[in-house]
């Protein structure tokens, strides 16, 4: 695999605000990479740098191995799907899709053929003559996608492309987007603040926070082994707590968590000789039982403070005797089966391998 997009130490500030701070990132050809982060983290600025709408103050942008840092957007082999779609309101679906092709000075027959091909690909047959305002949200989304894909760009950039759709349609479009990317083999770089979208779509996720890359890797890897407290809390639901080493065995280390209960973790995960470190426990990795758990099961007790019904599971806010607050999930395995209620005392069991030790104090 070769590098399709490469950012080398790019930085950008707007006035006093540092939007992007020394980011280096390589996107492989044919890869689906997601820039994930909270709003204002700089992910959109990164995307706009690749598109050419922003030029970095420092660093370089490479596309297909060529330095394009100073090339304007219309000379770059990338196309973007805009958040608002930015469809040309005065043009029909067909003319919107043909827009980029006409600028490539292709023959009329070649344009017609490509437009027909791409309209079939995104399932818009029959809508060719309509204007954007005559389309539904989902159809507009497809036109935006078709328009950007028609000129066969090396890289497709997607700026929160599904955020304007309702939940059901969003899921359908996620599946379609993934299918399309696999079929075309085009490099996709998607920007989103929705972790679900990032997990569902991407080969790799680049987690962006405060203008920097927090962690880059396959979604499952970031989920299982978050490198920082931010990564642990942004993807999935995690309880980040401070822990102190109180006993070191051959395989397991004993920790005092939050100055309260004790847990064991594989000693190999602990950062060297550090006396304290932050640990993360995923909400769904806490197994809840009504009866006391054996000490060997690595558990502690807590009181249910609040229960939020979420359909597939109940989201419980727990407080331990020492005042440590935790979020846990109680799956609704069987209908009618008594879950926990506020005020109940529950026993929580966590497998030592499921405790994530974040290398920070």
């Amino acid at each position, binding site marked *: 695999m070769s590098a399709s997009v490469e950012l080398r130490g790019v930085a950008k500030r707007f006035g006093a605000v540092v939007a992007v701070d020394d980011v280096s990132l390589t996107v492989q050809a044919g890869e689906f990479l997601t820039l994930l982060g909270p709003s204002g983290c700089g992910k959109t600025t990164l995307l706009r740098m690749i*598109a*050419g*709408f922003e030029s970095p103050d420092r660093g370089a942008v490479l596309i297909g191995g060529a330095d394009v840092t100073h090339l*304007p*957007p*219309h000379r770059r082999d*990338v*196309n*973007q799907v*805009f*958040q*608002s779609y*930015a*469809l*040309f*309101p*005065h043009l029909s679906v067909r003319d919107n899709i043909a*827009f*980029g092709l006409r*600028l*490539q000075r292709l023959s009329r027959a070649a344009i017609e053929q490509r437009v027909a091909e791409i309209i079939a690909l995104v399932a818009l047959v029959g809508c060719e003559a309509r204007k954007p305002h005559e389309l539904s949200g989902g159809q507009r989304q497809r036109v935006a996608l078709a*328009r*950007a894909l028609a*000129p066969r760009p090396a890289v497709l950039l997607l700026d929160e492309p599904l955020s304007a759709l309702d939940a059901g349609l969003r899921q359908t479009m996620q599946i379609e987007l993934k299918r399309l990317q696999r079929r075309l083999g085009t490099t996709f770089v998607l920007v989103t603040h929705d972790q679900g979208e990032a997990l569902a779509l991407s080969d790799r996720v680049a987690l962006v926070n405060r203008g920097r890359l927090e962690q880059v890797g396959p979604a499952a890897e970031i989920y299982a082994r978050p490198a920082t407290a931010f990564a642990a809390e942004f993807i999935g639901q995690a309880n980040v707590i401070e822990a102190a080493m109180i006993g070191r065995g051959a395989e397991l280390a004993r920790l005092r968590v939050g100055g309260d209960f004790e847990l064991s973790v594989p000693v190999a995960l602990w950062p060297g000789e550090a006396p304290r470190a932050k640990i993360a426990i995923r909400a769904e990795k806490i197994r809840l039982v009504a009866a006391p758990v054996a000490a060997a099961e690595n558990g502690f007790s807590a009181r249910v403070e609040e229960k939020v019904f979420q359909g597939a599971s109940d989201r419980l806010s727990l407080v331990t005797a020492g005042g440590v607050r935790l979020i846990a999930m109680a799956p609704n395995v069987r209908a009618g089966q008594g879950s926990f209620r506020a005020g109940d005392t529950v026993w929580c069991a966590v497998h030592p391998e499921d405790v994530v030790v974040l290398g920070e104090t």
Partner: protein
Amino acid sequence: MTDLVQASPGTARLPRFTGWLLLAPLAVWLIAFVVAPALILVVYSFSERDELGRVVFTFTLENYRRAADPVYLAVFGRSVAYAAITTAICAVLAYPVAWTLARTRAPWRGRLLLLVMIPFWTSFLIRTYAWITILKSEGLLNGLLLYTHTIAAPLELLYTPGAVVLGLVYAYLPFMILPIYGSAEKLDPALIEAAHDLGCGPWQSFARVVLPLTRPGLAAGVMMVFVPAIGMFAISDLMGGARVPLIGNVIQDQFVGQARDKPFGAALAVIFMALFALLYWLWQRRTEGRVA
């Protein structure tokens, strides 16, 4: 509009008494100062004048026959040409200004808009006389050029066709800037980015996206510049001298000048009105056709 009315049947009715009452001042004004004068003009245009220039009410087509005289057709052609050139120059000058205004952020946008409007604070005649002071043989511009030895003898700037067009452009430019600005302001900047993204250079994105999407503003600007420019008489009078009479000057001459032929002036005016009405109707039909 009609769709909205049909969608909610309760509102599909004529304005009630209070509605008519609110409309009354406008209706009275329109009848007194637009409909009635227009009718008087139409009646005049079929009348004759006596030796003293008084209107004699008869029915004759003589005035319209006279209007087809090559002398007047030439004046008419010249008026159309001047107005067209003025409109074209205004459009070319207005686009960058309107575009800049639309892309400027809050505090500065208001200030720049004010600069466009400030000329209206001074009387139009005073501003035209100011141009005369600048352009005349011993005026400011010639003085400056002579002083810097750019030229040896004063240039003849005033009382030329160029001076008339300059005066017209100066007078009507804001009427082109403001409607184009109104259209440009509504344009989503992402559309321009999309055009660039898909391979448009600056000119192509203007031709393919900006121009078509600001066409309503441009059309309004063309109406607001072309129509008054074609009938303007004060500028051609003051800045063109008697050398470049426009149709406005000819009409004015029939009513208050030496020619003193109100029926003939009325006929010319009626021809004009009919022509504009026709143009407006065609334009309206085209835009409606596009929407439907």
